[in-house]
């Protein structure tokens, strides 16, 4: 099914993207604010969604916010912040059942207005956010940052990227740093949010049913007059290995986590980028991949081993959970598999299978309203006008020579191993 995106400019730096579809039983609105990923702002940015969720001008307390959502037929509100390349993106999403299913055709206007309350009318007290809320959320953010170690796999991946990109903004942790929290208070945080509202590019996505009246309502609800919109520079990427290091870290764990970071130097704008996606898929995409077949199926070394391309930075990360004494062996097999890729030792079937896997995941995007909004946002962030179908076409056009060419641009940069010194 083709999905099309009608993009309307509704204010300086504010675009409304409309995706009409009958497929879902709900309507979904997502509003994204883009900010640069900067070391000095990151912690404040990360605190914003936590504080905004606590209360608005109209619904002063979280209790009121939550009860209002329940009245909106279980409307689901989610706010978060994510690193997308060297952008820090604030997301507000609300989703609730279509009027037909709850016998209330008009209530979605109220849902839109409620989202506006959360985004534009936070609870302000004495010229700042409510102090109590900010203090509590500072503590919660501190716990989130410290909680980085709880999921060992994602911790190891984060650490590898931190080490690998230590001289680049991309190494900045998306939830910020505990030591910054001392300098944040309810007033300076509110000032910071005002400047975000004033300067950030905003993309709004509406996925569901609508008519002209609804479009007008959304336009009027979200348009604001603004002057200077921040231009966020495109990430610098490099094929030159930056650190070339081996990092070991100890933790009291039962399974070692190996993460290897590679530079490819192939930007997403490059014609070869699509071949990079295919080659990473051949290497460590699914259960058919070279790494899965060797490291897991042949050698029984791991339960999971994966390879993934990070679009905005053009890096590739391979990660696996292995026994501590299998570090050298896993590394060697991985090295051999990449060498094989470079030498063209893979079958035409491998290429076809990799392409199909990518095509299936592209097609599946249209089955989830949330993924549709994430997909179009990613297109906006990368100035890419291609439709899903055009992207599929591009993937299908990748050939063996392209794959070998990109494989030869993959260079190992950082090897990270989380281990247990006592085992």
């Amino acid at each position: 099914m083709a999905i099309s995106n009608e993009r309307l400019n509704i204010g300086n730096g504010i675009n409304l993207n409309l995706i009409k579809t009958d497929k879902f039983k709900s309507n979904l609105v997502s509003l994204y604010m883009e900010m640069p990923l900067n070391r000095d702002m990151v912690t404040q940015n990360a605190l914003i969604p936590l504080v905004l969720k606590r209360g608005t001008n109209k619904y002063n307390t979280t209790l009121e916010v939550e009860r209002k959502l329940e009245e909106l037929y279980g409307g689901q509100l989610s706010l978060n912040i994510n690193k997308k390349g060297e952008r820090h993106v604030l997301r507000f999403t609300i989703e609730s059942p279509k009027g037909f299913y709850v016998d209330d055709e008009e209530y979605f206007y109220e849902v839109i207005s409620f989202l506006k309350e959360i985004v534009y009318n936070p609870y302000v007290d004495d010229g700042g956010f409510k102090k109590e809320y900010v203090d509590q959320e500072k503590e919660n953010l501190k716990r989130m940052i410290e909680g980085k170690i709880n999921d060992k796999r994602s911790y190891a991946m984060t650490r590898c990227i931190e080490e690998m990109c230590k001289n680049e903004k991309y190494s900045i942790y998306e939830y910020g740093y505990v030591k910054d929290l001392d300098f944040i208070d309810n007033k300076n945080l509110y000032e910071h949010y005002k400047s975000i509202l004033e300067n950030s590019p905003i993309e709004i996505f509406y996925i569901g049913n609508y008519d002209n009246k609804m479009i007008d309502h959304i336009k009027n609800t979200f348009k604001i007059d603004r002057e200077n919109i921040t231009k966020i520079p495109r990430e610098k990427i490099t094929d030159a290995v930056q650190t070339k290091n081996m990092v070991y870290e100890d933790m009291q764990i039962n399974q070692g986590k190996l993460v290897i970071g590679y530079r490819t130097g192939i930007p997403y704008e490059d014609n070869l980028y699509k071949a990079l996606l295919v080659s990473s898929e051949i290497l460590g995409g699914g259960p058919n991949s070279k790494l899965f077949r060797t490291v897991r199926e042949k050698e029984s070394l791991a339960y999971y081993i994966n390879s993934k391309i990070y679009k905005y930075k053009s890096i590739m990360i391979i990660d696996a959970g292995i026994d501590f004494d299998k570090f050298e062996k896993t590394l060697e097999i991985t090295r051999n598999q990449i060498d094989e890729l470079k030498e063209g030792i893979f079958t035409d079937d491998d290429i076809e299978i990799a392409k199909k896997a990518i095509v299936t995941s592209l097609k599946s995007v249209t089955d989830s309203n949330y993924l549709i909004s994430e997909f179009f946002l990613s297109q906006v962030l990368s100035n890419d006008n291609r439709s899903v179908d055009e992207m599929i076409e591009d993937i299908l056009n990748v050939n063996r020579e392209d794959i070998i060419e990109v494989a030869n641009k993959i260079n190992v940069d950082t090897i990270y191993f989380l281990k247990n010194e006592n085992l």
Partner: protein
Amino acid sequence: MDKSIFKNNKINEELFFYESESGLKVYLMPKSGYMKKYAVFATQYGSNDNKFIPIGEKEAIEVPEGIAHFLEHKLFEEPDENIFDKFSEFGASVNAYTNFNQTAYLFSCTDNFYENLELLIKFVQNPYFTDENVEKEKGIIAQEIKMYEDNPGWKVFFNCLTGMYHNHPVKTDIAGTVESIRKIDKEILYTCYNTFYHPKNMVLFLVGDISFEEVVKVVDSSEKKDIKLDVEEITRIYPEEPKEIKEKYIEEKLVTSIPIFIIGFKDDELGLEGKELVKREIVTNILLEMLFGKSSKFYQELYSEGLIDASFGGQYVGHKNYGHSIVAGQSYKPEVVLERINTYLEEIRNEGLNEEDFERIKNKDIGSNIMGFNSVEFIANNFINYFFLDFLFLDYLDVYDSISFEDALNRFNKHYRKDNYTLSVIKPV
């Protein structure tokens, strides 16, 4: 041949049903306009079914812990082809999972659905175990077990189960232990397979933009033909489980930034099936949301005091022969959270629950479930789970019509008591 169509106008969905010659029940929920097509082939056999009478025998046997999960891994093995490759060639991604009560094999794809379906039926119905391939799997599963050993959320949950249950197999880890899986060999795998993978003990569920006629054709032509049809019901043996919990408190140390906890309330109103079981589950979940959800005063109080964070919440799970509510979260003072919960429950015992809260939560639940029907994965996983509880998930929302505030009150008094809970805590090393 038995064919029928069920409809639910409330959620605007249909369900096609057909029973094949071997006794396999096949259900299809059409989703027009969806690109993704999803199929699950599941057996009512999970980690809880560790003691049973093997098919064609008289004596019960007890098998090593983790065997249902081990079997799930090994079914992907075929004599002369790699099953992952076959699915990959058709652009499908194939997977499987084992839980306490079922093992499910599934794939999702956008193209070549019927070819993939044929593959799914054939590989699940064709076990191929050798000494060598069984040995090889032990290393892989050992790594899977170790991965979970480092997961504080998983550990705190299983510790809570071992605190609540004396004997019931739900307290043992689904994958078993590195030691228990060593005892597994191909003979015992075949015994389990032959007993539990009979079509009569299985269900095939499909969801997506799929033709029912085609499905019937594929099932008829692909399913195994030389299957003995007059088989007896499987006898599963569960140990006697006392109503009381085993231990009040369990603590372990792992790498975590903050202590995490689960309070488990053990259910002793057991033996329900079908709609009654589902009704009890919904009532209990509404109650948990009323008591501990984000829109409760209790949640907001503890949150403001920094005793809990957004991870706090509760959930009830109920099966035919066991059930429990869990209330989970992270806190620097789990013991204080428990104390507050106790005081709070005592207050409610004296003052009662609020009917407005009940209505609000009930409506919210209905809305959330309607939205769930956007996702083929949500539909499929729930369908399988409820099917083995003798309930058609299509009618899930209708159960809400039969639930009243009185049901919630009754349930509260019986289930949230002072003597039936375990506190499990994982503290930082």
